[in-house]
């Protein structure tokens, strides 16, 4: 009798709440691909998983926190970053990752993004950019390319989108990268670098929404998106972020654009308070609950 073949466990399963699978994401959606990359980055970064907290806002990508077997917080629309700010400041030993979508982070939450980058609080911000509000049915987002169709721009979008890497760099991010979900190895490597870097890191992931963006814009399914990304993407590490904006007809410039050092919020806070208060400064590693 032939022995049963033992199927090895998928190495990312340990990071997932398997009892919640199947997930809600559509066939061809890129969010799952990004989560797979994130799980691999967690393994390789060797961070203590009990000290990792993940915070999401609302939307399709907002559901990521709910599938990851980590301390995970599904917050309110646009407010993942300020929630993460409180979490990190009260317990600086935590590695805090904000994982959310383009509408959540850059429309309703845009102000929080620029302020967190300015402060250079030690956070990793992962933005899955599917160019649309997907959870609510495909409305225009601040990332939708000019002339693209959405349910609220039925004749084509006429607002220019944000260039997210440029916005992040200008606001103060110390690490800025962009990949598509075609670039899984590069994306996982960037995530690992961000996890091991101090300061405010930002990774944009251009990701397909076959159901609401591609279908309406006649761009095919998930596989067509991979072909499109492969064909249109140009890797330009170190490219000036002012040159990486993309529109519906241009190349998609991907790569690691910014990797620099700035004093972090916690570092400058301790320094300033020690300078002014000397011995009287009651510096605490962790804000305890009394």
């Amino acid at each position: 009798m032939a022995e049963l073949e033992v199927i090895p466990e998928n190495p990312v399963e340990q990071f997932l709440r398997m009892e919640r699978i199947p997930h809600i994401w559509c066939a061809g959606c890129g969010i799952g691909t990004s989560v797979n990359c994130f799980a691999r980055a967690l393994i390789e970064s060797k961070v203590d998983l009990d000290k990792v907290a993940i915070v999401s806002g609302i939307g399709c990508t907002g559901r990521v926190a709910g599938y990851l077997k980590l301390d995970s917080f599904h917050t309110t629309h646009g407010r993942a970053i300020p929630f993460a700010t409180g979490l990190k400041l009260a317990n600086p030993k935590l590695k805090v990752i904000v994982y959310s979508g383009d509408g959540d982070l850059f429309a309703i939450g845009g102000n929080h993004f620029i302020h967190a980058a300015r402060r250079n609080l030690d956070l990793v911000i992962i933005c899955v950019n599917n160019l649309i509000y997907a959870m609510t049915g495909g409305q225009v987002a601040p990332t939708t390319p000019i002339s693209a169709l959405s349910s609220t721009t039925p004749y084509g979008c006429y607002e220019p989108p944000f260039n997210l890497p440029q916005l992040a760099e200008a606001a103060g991010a110390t690490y800025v990268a962009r990949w598509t979900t075609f670039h899984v190895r590069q994306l996982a490597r960037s995530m690992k670098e961000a996890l091991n870097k101090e300061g405010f890191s930002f990774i944009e992931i251009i990701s397909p929404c076959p159901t609401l963006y591609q279908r309406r814009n006649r761009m095919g399914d998930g596989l067509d998106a991979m072909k499109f990304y492969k064909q249109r993407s140009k890797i330009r590490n170190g490219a000036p972020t002012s040159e990486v904006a993309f529109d519906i007809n241009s190349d998609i410039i991907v790569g690691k654009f910014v990797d620099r050092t700035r004093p972090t919020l916690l570092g400058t806070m301790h320094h300033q308070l020690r300078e002014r208060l000397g011995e009287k400064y009651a510096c605490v590693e962790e804000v305890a609950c009394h």
Partner: protein
Amino acid sequence: MTADPKGVLTGIHFLDGDFACAEGCLAAGARFAAGYPITPSTEVVERFAQRIPLVGGTFIQMEDELAASIAIQGAVWAGAKAFTVTSGPGFSLMMEHIGYAAMTETPCVFVNVQRGGPSTGLPTLPAQADMMQARWGSHGDYEIIALSPSSPQECFDLTIRAFNLSEQYRTPVLLMMDECVGHMTEKVVIPPAEEIEIYPRRLTNKPPEAFQPYETDGDLVPEMVHAGMGYRFHITGLTHDERGYPAMSPVAQDKLIRRITAKIRNAAERISMREEEGIDGAEVVVVSYGITARVAQRSIELARRKGVRVGKLRLLTVWPFPDWRVREIAKQVKAFVVPELNMGQIAREVERASCGAARTVPVPHAGGTVHRPEQILEAILEAAK
């Protein structure tokens, strides 16, 4: 347990209500605050920002009130006791996160030093016009606890009480001050730390494999864990099951909403604090709270000199509203007189709770200053007829 002495400034002080509130936060064990400047509440966080580096903890000024009101909740889940402070326009922005705290059962304190509204209104002048917003401001069904101090001493005492209630019932608690109480300077006695009772956070003793974030036993309040403790738990503002996972069904909604409302409703008599005086044998009872209770005190004395039997019911806990007590009193009196710095908010509650057994005479005031004692006196005399 009792207070951590590091945060307790034991002694006799001359403080305004805002500063007394900040000292109450420190005495209660708050080691994190996030705020956004807004008159007339800013002094609370100014004091906290000055004191907290000496005590051990963090203050951060956020980019707006939306951010402040959720940053404190991140801090709570990281292990801190935390609060934010605001006034009218900022209170409006914080509504969503009062709902988030109610839904996720995050213990935290929101302080509202009330000023005239609506909109920008009267930034530097008093009102009590956010009382219904305090009760109902966030969308959906939830119960809330709201306290109303009448003096700087009570700003200190009730702030500690607010933190203790938030931990006991795992709910946001609102401290509804007003500009007068916030800016009035009086004697404040801060007792020794060992005389200050602190309700500790309800942390679980269960191991991770046996713990579910929203499992409860008899008392309807689940136990907590903090991020970084190794539990790998999930929290969401979506309707959720005991595991904390989203559960999109009428059954899950019914179970959750009934529990989070029942945990406060069932405890209403224990939560309620009132000052009652001269109610037995009274013809008229004045129901008041906050700064207005102090004006009403004068009116009650004037009415008694004129021979009217007037009782006093001062609400230190406004929400949950003491329906049962108002209903009892209504059977014995002719009328309630309800002065407040709004166009009649708590008066509606008094009328509702008295079930027609006694008349309710509102004494509305649009705010900007307090009532004149004569205004309330007139209403008492009218009510006693």
